[in-house]
């Protein structure tokens, strides 16, 4: 039998220049932090990449003051058309430096270069292009034209640059200035973005980037001079933020966890459904808040679908994130890896059947094979809690009503998927699902024109599209 082995095809690291240490980006310049510097590592090798400053309360104060000054003196007074020029410029520089951003994202985050190159970076540029277009047309948005002021933005480690774009682009388009805190395990592309702001001649103070962990984030969202808080991350931290800002005049949008149902009916296009399931849960190692982590498959096709799914999972290529043929990269941190392991052990202990394809895991770094659990019921913790890893729980249903009931039986409500060749069934089910996004015969598709957000414990407010403007304009939630 012939074996077609793919030779290593690594993307070159030479294009990125990672500095030994990074400061904070405040008022248009890089400055020292006054907290305790921390290290960011490559999760695929555990190699230390750089030392990054921690913003102390005083640093956060300085950054918010810089943002306030830039808001009052420059940015809020600038016409929408002028703001748009800067946003277009940033979007174009992201495109021009896309390979550099993609390589850096993969090194710092662990995601496959194929995804950072084909999804994260081009989509980030697309959000800037999209909101640049809104900047001089806000009077047609239906949400007014008055910005809020200074936005405190805290973003997660799963899509570092893309989440930055989701936060910064609409804020700036509407005339706000921002202080953004990237996640402590993935600060490097945000710091490269700071350089891009300099390259684009963005007025100082319009974008400020403070690095650090929970304490820095807490100081930022709790700061008295902040008008708006936007957070993407865990439900637990989201709740803490909601408590912090309760009773203030700050506007808040929260984009939190999820436990999305991916519903496959018996008349679904099976091979494409398998692709959608794989894309839904193994894209970005499952580090996706809207991941399709619960597969609900109609009982009459469950065996067939699972056989196809397992065969497909066996062809997934796990390894070096910089290799262009890698499908599954590294888990972002040891902490996250421990959490995934713990929840999978609980899944087994609770009686679900665990399966993963034969898969050599590299010896260094943080890795977890693509895994599925069968025999899962609604009572299992792996069916209820967000694993945030490449772990799929498979449940079955008999009727559309049962599928909807199970899909909605979760405290979350961020996304869902429906697979069927029958349009009327898709429309009926989609209307009954309590989820902010419902994908039909596809999954994990993101577009700047489409709003994104959740129900219940998945948060509130919408990002993206026209609706995303409301979060950054006065008088609207």
């Amino acid at each position: 039998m012939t074996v077609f082995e793919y030779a290593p095809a690594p993307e070159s690291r030479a294009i990125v220049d990672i500095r030994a240490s990074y400061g904070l980006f405040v008022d248009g310049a890089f400055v020292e932090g006054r907290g305790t510097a921390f290290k960011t590592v490559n999760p695929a090798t555990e190699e230390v990449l750089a030392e990054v400053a921690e913003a102390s309360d005083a640093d956060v104060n300085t950054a918010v003051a810089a943002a306030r000054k830039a808001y009052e003196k420059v940015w809020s007074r600038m016409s929408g058309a002028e703001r748009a020029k800067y946003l277009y410029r940033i979007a174009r520089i992201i495109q021009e430096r896309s390979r550099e951003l993609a390589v850096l994202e993969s090194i710092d985050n662990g995601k496959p270069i194929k995804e950072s190159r084909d999804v994260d970076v081009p989509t980030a540029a697309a959000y800037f292009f999209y909101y640049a277009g809104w900047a001089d047309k806000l009077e047609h948005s239906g949400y007014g034209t008055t910005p809020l002021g200074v936005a405190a933005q805290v973003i997660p480690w799963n899509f570092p640059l893309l989440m930055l774009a989701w936060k910064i682009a609409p804020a700036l388009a509407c005339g706000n200035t921002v202080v953004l805190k990237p996640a402590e395990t993935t600060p490097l592309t945000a710091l490269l973005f700071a350089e891009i702001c300099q390259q684009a001649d963005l007025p100082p103070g319009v974008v400020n980037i403070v690095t650090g962990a929970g304490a820095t984030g807490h100081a930022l969202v709790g700061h008295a001079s902040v008008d708006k808080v936007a957070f993407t991350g865990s439900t637990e931290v989201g709740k803490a933020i909601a408590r912090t800002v309760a009773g203030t005049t700050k506007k808040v949008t929260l984009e939190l966890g999820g436990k999305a149902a991916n519903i496959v009916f018996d008349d679904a296009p099976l091979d494409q459904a398998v692709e959608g399931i794989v894309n839904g849960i193994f894209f970005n190692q499952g580090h996706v808040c809207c991941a399709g982590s619960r597969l609900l498959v109609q009982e009459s096709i469950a065996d067939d679908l699972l056989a196809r799914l397992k065969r497909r999972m066996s062809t997934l290529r796990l390894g070096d994130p910089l290799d262009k043929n890698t499908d599954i990269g590294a888990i972002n941190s040891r902490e996250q890896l421990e959490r995934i392991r713990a929840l999978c052990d609980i899944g087994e202990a609770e009686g679900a059947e665990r399966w993963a394809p034969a898969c050599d895991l590299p010896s260094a770094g943080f890795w977890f094979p693509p895994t599925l659990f069968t025999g899962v019921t609604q009572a299992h913790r792996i069916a209820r809690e967000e694993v945030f890893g490449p772990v799929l729980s498979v449940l079955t249903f008999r009727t559309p009503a049962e599928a909807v009931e199970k899909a909605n039986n979760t405290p979350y409500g961020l996304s869902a998927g429906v697979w069927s060749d029958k349009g009327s069934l898709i429309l009926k089910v989609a209307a009954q699902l309590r989820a902010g996004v419902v994908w039909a015969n596809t999954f994990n598709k993101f577009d700047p024109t489409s709003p994104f957000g959740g129900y219940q414990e998945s948060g509130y407010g919408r990002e993206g599209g026209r609706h995303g403007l409301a979060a950054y304009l006065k008088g609207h939630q």
Partner: protein
Amino acid sequence: MPVPSSNPMLRGMPPTAEDLAGTPAAHQFSDVTASDAALRRFLHGLPGVDQVGAEARAAGLGTRSIKTTAKAFAIDLAITMVDLTTLEGMDTSGKVRALAAKAMRPDPADPSCPAAAAVCVYPDLVADARAVLGDSGVRVAAVATSFPSGRAALPIKLADVRDAVAAGADEIDMVIDRGAFLSGRYLQVFEEIVAVREACDSAHLKVIFETGELQTYDNVRRASWLAMMAGGHFIKTSTGKVQPAATLPVTLVMLEAVRDFRDATGTMVGVKPAGGIRTTKDAIKYLVMVNEIVGPDWLDPDWFRFGASTLLNDLLMQRTKMTTGRYSGPDYFTLD
């Protein structure tokens, strides 16, 4: 309320080992092919193909990066899979003899270069190809059944096939009656393939769908099952006379069909994309698709072919580049 069939294939599911035990592959589908209505129910009961998803999957596989040793391996494999083709009204025995010589020794400057799989010609030129190829191992394939339109009476098509086989063809590339297929007369298409297969005698049968005329992926999947159930050894995308000819997503759907057919029956069927594949880069995308959709069993000229004329020289040029590190011009490769 339709009564669920006892045949698992009618429910669109692979049968269990129990279903298949003691059932010769050829007779498994006797109840499916008993009537036009039953055949229609079966073909329309196959899982649908979502166009957007299938095209996205094909495009995704197209981004695989095949370099160095993997590329060298793929190029040699692709050369062994080429059905070197000439199907022009102006074909002559001289042209066919030159092509046959090329198929045996594609790169006269490099004896380590493997031979192509076959030479593909019109039936009246089979004897010329046979005379040159002899027992070299390079096969003679003939397009028959009133290629490319297939618009002739069945006895004429069968005579066309027998003529080619008698002249020494190892393989027959037939076209299906697209008119009958598109008007829903599946049984007629099925029976015609069965009749051609009989007329082929020991020659292998490739069944051409002309996917550019069938147009939808659902049709491609149905045609694939129809041809496999009728006993085709290979399913082939196109004649090369209609655009679009072979595409990656069409080939993807056909590969999924042969994979599912083997799961259901244990019988392997080959796949031949033909028409429009001109570059090494394209050929490698197809091989990646074979590798990841149906697996290494199909990475063999017995189970996968390229119907092409200009592809071979590009493969040779890339092959020389891989071994020497330099590109030589097209003048260093033979035009036949």
